[in-house]
């Protein structure tokens, strides 16, 4: 009210008017420049998610002439009652747990090594990072050959006098074999992030620890690891999100077999959507997977935050 009174009392000068017009124009230009990106996000990210959520309450089949027919929670009920879904969820969780901890521990070890001013360290960093820039599909094909009966791994095993191993065809081994490939693939990217984390830990913390008589292990546990905690929270969360959505390597290396031992939830979604044309069920499964990823990610972030508070 007071402002209105003042503005009503004071006449607006031509300079203020011009400045206001310029600001409006700048805002409009900004909006025009941002519009393509906003449009992209709305059309290709937001809308598909909303539409998929809607489809999860329908019986939609893309091959059918009639559009989606609402059927309430039927898709969710069918999926939750299906043994295949729970098997796939179990496989996905096991796969994630098999990949994330080793890929983080090894990446920290490699980052510590790559952080030393050694000769040829640049080449070492590049070599470790190389798998990151290779497409997962191409890497999966190469590893498929490495694991084959005539592949490198069976050759190495034969040098040790051990019988050839059916890496990808044994229900007991297939998931572990794919997990090893995924650890190899994740190492480079994780190492670079940890390396960046290591380089921002202030050097005086190490000096202070040395003055206090800390040995190398004590410095690692009480300076390095706490210093890496924010990066670790990010790397773990992102890795969990990626791994819960694993598909390409499974599709190429095992097709979900043998005996469903490598069928991840995303592989199941692929089958429901594109082999059985059950887009309603596939969408419901996708949202159930989203819920699980969300819970795991939140749990992970909370875990790290709690540690930081305690520290």
């Amino acid at each position: 009210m007071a402002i209105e009174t003042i503005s009503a009392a004071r006449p607006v000068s031509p300079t203020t008017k011009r400045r206001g017009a310029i600001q409006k124009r700048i805002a409009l230009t900004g909006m025009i420049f941002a519009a393509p990106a906003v449009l992209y996000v709305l059309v290709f990210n937001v809308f598909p998610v909303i539409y998929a959520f809607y489809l999860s309450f329908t019986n939609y089949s893309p091959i059918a002439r009639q559009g989606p027919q609402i059927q309430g929670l039927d898709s969710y009920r069918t999926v939750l009652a299906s043994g295949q879904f729970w098997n796939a969820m179990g496989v996905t969780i096991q796969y994630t747990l098999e990949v994330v901890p080793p890929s983080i521990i090894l990446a920290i070890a490699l980052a510590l090594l790559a952080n030393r001013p050694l000769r040829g360290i640049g080449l070492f960093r590049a070599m470790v990072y190389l798998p990151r820039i290779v497409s997962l599909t191409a890497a999966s094909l190469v590893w498929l050959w490495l694991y084959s009966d005539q592949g490198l791994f069976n050759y190495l095993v034969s040098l040790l006098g051990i019988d050839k191993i059916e890496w990808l065809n044994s229900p007991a081994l297939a998931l572990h074999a794919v997990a090893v490939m995924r650890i190899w693939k994740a190492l480079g990217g994780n190492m670079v992030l940890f390396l960046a984390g290591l380089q921002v830990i202030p050097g005086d913390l190490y000096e202070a620890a040395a003055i206090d008589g800390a040995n190398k292990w004590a410095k690692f546990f009480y300076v390095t690891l706490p210093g890496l905690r924010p990066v670790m929270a990010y790397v773990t969360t992102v890795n969990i999100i990626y791994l819960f959505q694993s598909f390409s390597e499974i599709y190429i290396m095992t097709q979900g077999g043998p005996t469903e031992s490598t069928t991840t939830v995303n592989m199941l979604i692929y089958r429901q959507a594109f082999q059985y044309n059950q887009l309603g069920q596939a969408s419901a499964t996708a949202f159930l997977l989203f819920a699980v990823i969300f819970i795991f990610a939140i749990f992970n972030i909370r875990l790290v935050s709690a540690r930081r508070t305690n520290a």
Partner: protein
Amino acid sequence: MFRRMAFIAMLLMFTVISSSFAACSSGLSSSGTTRIKVWFPGNSVPESDLMLKTLVPEFEKANPSIKVDVQYVDWGSLSPKLNSGFAGGIAPDVFGHGTAATAGFAVNNRVLSLDDYINKLDEATRKDFGATINAGLVNGHRYMMPLVGDGQLYAYRTDLFQAAGLDLAHPPTNWDELQNAARKLTQRQGGKVVRAGLQFGSTGISAEGTFASFLYQAGGQLLNKDNTAITWNSEQGIKALQFMVNLYNGPDAVGTNANANAALLPISQHPLVTGQAAIALVGSSTLASIQRVRPDVMKNIAVMPPISQEQQAAFGGTGTALFINKDSKHPDASWRFIQYMTSFTTLQKYTNVTGAFPIRTSFLKSDLVQKQPFMKPYLEAEASNIFQPNPDIPAWIQLRDILTRYLEKAMVQQMTPKAALDAAAQEAGSLLAKK
């Protein structure tokens, strides 16, 4: 000024985009020629080269009013892309697909009935296609035109046969003979099979093909005659699966899962090429690839006539077939292209490159059999209706996946053959009842 210019630019863009969409959707170019869109399954470079550099130009030269846009789509992406195309109204006029997809397309009114076109074919041509002309029959209507055949027969290494003292002139004809020959050909090291006497698909969908072969040979069927009930857990089914399991398990095993991914590996690593398998259940295109890459090995490979137990049978039939989109604005031009693709002359060139066996019986008398002798048993099996396909019902892919899951469990002895087939029949039966 700025706003006006932005508005004019957007208007221009909209006009250009909408006019190009309109041009695309009509399929008619300004010169009045008809443009048809064709999707072929696969990712073979020699095949797409033949199609784009030879076959399509030949067709367009003979039919100047028709232009053909051919696109190759990887088998794995074909159904997703087609479904998206159907849903979005941009599916191709003509597409190639497996026979098993026919019922799904037909029931959902996505493909055109080809009855009128096929009935107009001359008698000799229809006879030449044999029973396959009626493949993909849904509710009494034909929806596909067979392009090439697909079937699995036993190929064997003649050099290893001779070395094992087996008679090349009398390859195995039934299960006992097959198992005995495989036993003689099997080599072990420390109790482990290092050379499989017999190799077949034992995982994934290839396990279903192997099981179907044994089941048909035992006189059984996957579903009943009207496709309303599961019959794969019949006495014949259990016998077939037990035989399959015995071949890969126990101290007398003649095969191994080690090469289950052979289809994904380079052809030079195929067990028949490396000598890790003496007999293998393969399709003609695998042998054509071996001939192209390792002609030296192919000299020592021959194909057995189909095995018989209760009856002579093998899994197979029509491989890739051609369909016309129900919404195509150019069905006649599409059919002309299909007619051209399934003509004897075109198939000669096409099958020479793809290695798939042509489905026309007249090829038995052609020089193809002299050039590629391994084709003869496939052509003969096709001509004698020995190949039997999977049931053609919309739910088949789902039923097949259920069966495959349990076949794998039986193969690694997590379940007995009877328990696996019964469990598969129960799960699939309730699904079939819902459909």
